[in-house]
C-alpha cells in the first residue's frame, strides 16, 4: 500500500498534501483555481500567498505538466485583509 502523505500545504485552512492529491485525481483538476475551490487550499486569510507555489508544483506533478504551463491563480481584491467598515468609507 502506498504511504499517505500528511504534509500540511495550506496552513490557513489546514489542508494536507494527500487531500489535494485526492481531489486532483477524483475531480480531474488542472488549475490552481480549481484545486482551491474544491479543497479550500488557498482560500484562507492569506489567500494562497504562502501555499500557491506548493500547490502549483503538486498540480504540475499530477497532470504531467510544467509549472509554467499552468494557469496562474486568479487574483481578486483586497491584497491584504481589510475591515468591512473600511469598504464603507467615502473617497
Amino acid at each position: 500500500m502506498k504511504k499517505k502523505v500528511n504534509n500540511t500545504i495550506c496552513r490557513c485552512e489546514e489542508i494536507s498534501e494527500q487531500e489535494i492529491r485526492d481531489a486532483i485525481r477524483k475531480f480531474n483538476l488542472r488549475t490552481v483555481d480549481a484545486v482551491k475551490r474544491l479543497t479550500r487550499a488557498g482560500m484562507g486569510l492569506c489567500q494562497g500567498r504562502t501555499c500557491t507555489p506548493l500547490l502549483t508544483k503538486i498540480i504540475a506533478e499530477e497532470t504531467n505538466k510544467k509549472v509554467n504551463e499552468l494557469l496562474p491563480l486568479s487574483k481578486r481584491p483586497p491584497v491584504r485583509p481589510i475591515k468591512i467598515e473600511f469598504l464603507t468609507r467615502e473617497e
Partner: protein
Amino acid sequence: MNRIADVVVVGGGVIGCSVAYCLAKKGVRVIVVEKKEGLSFGASGANQGGCPLQLFESPVLELARESGKLYKNLAEEIGCDIEYENVGSLVCSVDEKQYPDMEKHFQNKQREGMNVRLMEGDQLRKLEPTLGEDIVVGVEEWDTWIVNPFKVNYGFAYAARKLGTEFLFSTQVKKIERDKERVVSVITDREKIKTNFLVNAVGAWASEIGKMLGLTIPVRARRGQIIVTEPVPLNERWRYILDADYLTTAFDLAAVEKSKDPRIKLGVAGSYIQEKSGNWTIGSSRDFAGYNNRVTMQTLKYIAKRVIKFVPRLKDISCIRTFAGLRPFCYGDGLPILSKIKNPQNFIIATGHAGEGMTLAPITGKLIAELITENRPSLSIDAFSFSRFKNVN
C-alpha cells in the same frame, strides 16, 4: 479529428454538468464542450450557494421545490459531498414603510404552503442577538438550503465522467453546421463533433451561441458582486439572512427602473450567508457591464454599508476576498429558458436562470434529459418555453 456524440452540451457550469449527468444516467453519449480550462467559470463559480425557497414565486417555485427534493439525496447519488445544509432563511426589513409588504409576503408564503413565521424586530433579536437594531420585521422559513457550489458543479461532472461523458476543456465552439431542420455538427477551434442534439448551457454567453444559428436568445450577462469574510463563530439561529429589498432588486425590474436610489439602481440588496466554516459571504448586487466580471468599489461600498445595518458586528470583521460573476439574465421576463425550439428542432436552450442556477440545477438537468430522451418532461416546462419570445424571432 472528428468525434461523434448523441448530445453535445456547450458549457461546463452547473447547468451543463447537471444536464450531462442526467443524460449519461440514461445511457446517452454526451460530450461537454467548455471554453475555459475547468468548470464553474461563470455564475456557477461566483455565487453564495444559497437556495432561498421563500423568495420564489410560481412558476419558478414549483421547479425550486422539486430541485430541493433532488438535492436531499444528491451527495449520495453522485458520490461527492456537496455540503448540503438545511439552514432555513430570514427575510427582514430595516424600513418601517416595508411592513405591509412583509405582511403580504408572509401571507403569500403561507398560502403557498410554506412553513413561515412573521416576527417583530425585538423578537428576532432575542433569537439572534447579532441582528441589528434597525430591523423592524422579518419572516423566517425552514425549507431553504445551502450547498457548496463548486462541489455541486464538479460533483455532477465527476458522476457524468464515471458514466462515460467526455469533457473537452479549452475548447470553443466556432460554428454550428445544420441542414434545413436540424443541427448536424458542432465545429470547435479543435475539431468537428457530429451530434444528434445540441444543448446551449453557456449561461450569460447564451446569446453568442444563438447568433451562430441566427437566433436571438434574450439573455444578457448580469453582474453580481460578493464579499467574503474571515471565519467567525456561527450564528445561533439564522445563517442565511436576506434583505426585503432583494424581492425588488432581483425580481421587480420595473421598480428598479423607477427608483432614484443609487443603491437600488446597482441592484444592491443584502444576501448574507454564513458557511459551516464560519466565513460569511456578503452579497448582493445586479448590474449590466457587458462581460466585465470585476468588482467595483462603488458597489462594494453599498454592499458593505447595507450589511452593517443588518448584522452590525460584521463591520469589524475582515474582508479577505471579493469577487464578481456574470449571471444569465433573461431580459424578456427574468425567467429561465428551458426549451426545444421549432427550428433547428434538435437545439435545446437551458439557461436564463439568473441568480437561481444553483437552486435549479438538479431539476433542470432532469427535465432537459427527459425532454431529449422522451420528448416529454415529467414536470411542465411550458412557462419556460422559447416560444414566449415571439416578438424577438
